[in-house]
């Protein structure tokens, strides 16, 4: 195992993965390990269970691998996650359709027994948000994407992402049970 610090950027690794050299596999593996948890989390928010999330993540990474293996070369113009996210959404939608489960799935992921009580209220409030508003809120707040990156990932105009975030916050603020989360 290579224990050297991983200093290569995503763009450098993408280039290497497309080089058809012996280093291509290692480059892809680094990209995979760097973004795996993010992709799995994103997939989990869009799918009914862990297995469906793993399937969606698998499809997203295979899609990336397929893209890296055919010309023209992929040039990364933003974070790799903004490229992967549409693939995750697509795969998650396919998985949900296959399992004929309700489309309006909870975005917050599985609940945990050790969560504080306020988390339950927040989780319920999130589930009541329109899916598109929920997605923007989580991608921006939890995953740390800028609104420009959120817009790219969701393939919408930036103004739309901004507006959805604004409306999501408005709805949450109106919820009495979440008042403490809006206090300074």
């Amino acid at each position: 195992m290579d224990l050297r610090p991983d200093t290569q950027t995503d763009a450098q690794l993408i280039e290497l993965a497309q080089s058809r050299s012996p280093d291509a596999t290692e480059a892809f593996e680094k990209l995979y390990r760097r973004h795996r948890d993010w992709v799995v989390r994103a997939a989990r928010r869009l799918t009914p269970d862990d297995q469906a999330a793993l399937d969606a993540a698998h499809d997203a990474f295979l899609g990336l691998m397929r893209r890296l293996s055919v010309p023209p070369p992929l040039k990364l113009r933003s974070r790799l996650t903004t490229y992967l996210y549409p693939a995750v959404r697509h795969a998650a939608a396919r998985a949900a359709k296959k399992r004929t489960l309700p489309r309006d799935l909870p975005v917050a992921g599985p609940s945990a027994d050790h969560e504080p009580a306020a988390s339950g209220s927040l989780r319920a409030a999130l589930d009541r948000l329109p899916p598109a508003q929920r997605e923007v809120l989580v991608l921006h707040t939890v995953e740390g994407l800028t609104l420009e990156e959120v817009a790219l990932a969701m393939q919408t105009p930036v103004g739309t992402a901004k507006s959805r975030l604004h409306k999501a916050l408005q709805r949450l603020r109106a919820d009495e049970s979440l008042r403490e989360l809006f206090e300074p």
Partner: protein
Amino acid sequence: MHDHDDSQSEPAVPAKLADALRQISRQPIDTRELDTRVLACADRLGSPSSFPIRLSMGRLVGLGGALAAGLALAMVFWPQLSQPRSASLAQSSIANDFDRDGRVTVLDAYLVARGVRDGTVDPAWDADASGTVNLSDADAIAQLAVLLEPADSAPTSERLDSAGAG
């Protein structure tokens, strides 16, 4: 339809809300199975001749068309193809007769294409002498087999031999 509003400023997410959202959104999932599934495929990225998803759409269409035409011919002439052959043909070493059935047919192309797909190619299948075995070889054999396969003539192998010699 999108709800546009470019003019408004970026809304600030309160710190406590952000923390709470992060807390409920980050539940660990066991990814060992995913690691195995994805990284098993990643091994193929560095091997130019054996990765099935390197195919261009044009080549796929071309090969698919050639294979479809060949298979149609094979079905039409199946009674002839399935008759027992002489020992000399069964043992023949005809160029490109990779399945050793005494003829060069689309089935030889299929054998090569399947080998490329599965990563189990034989160096002897380098029909176009390019130094690597890939779909170009399957393509070339399929086209040759389809183009030179008449309905009522001597065994294909003889014609291929003469074509190769000429």
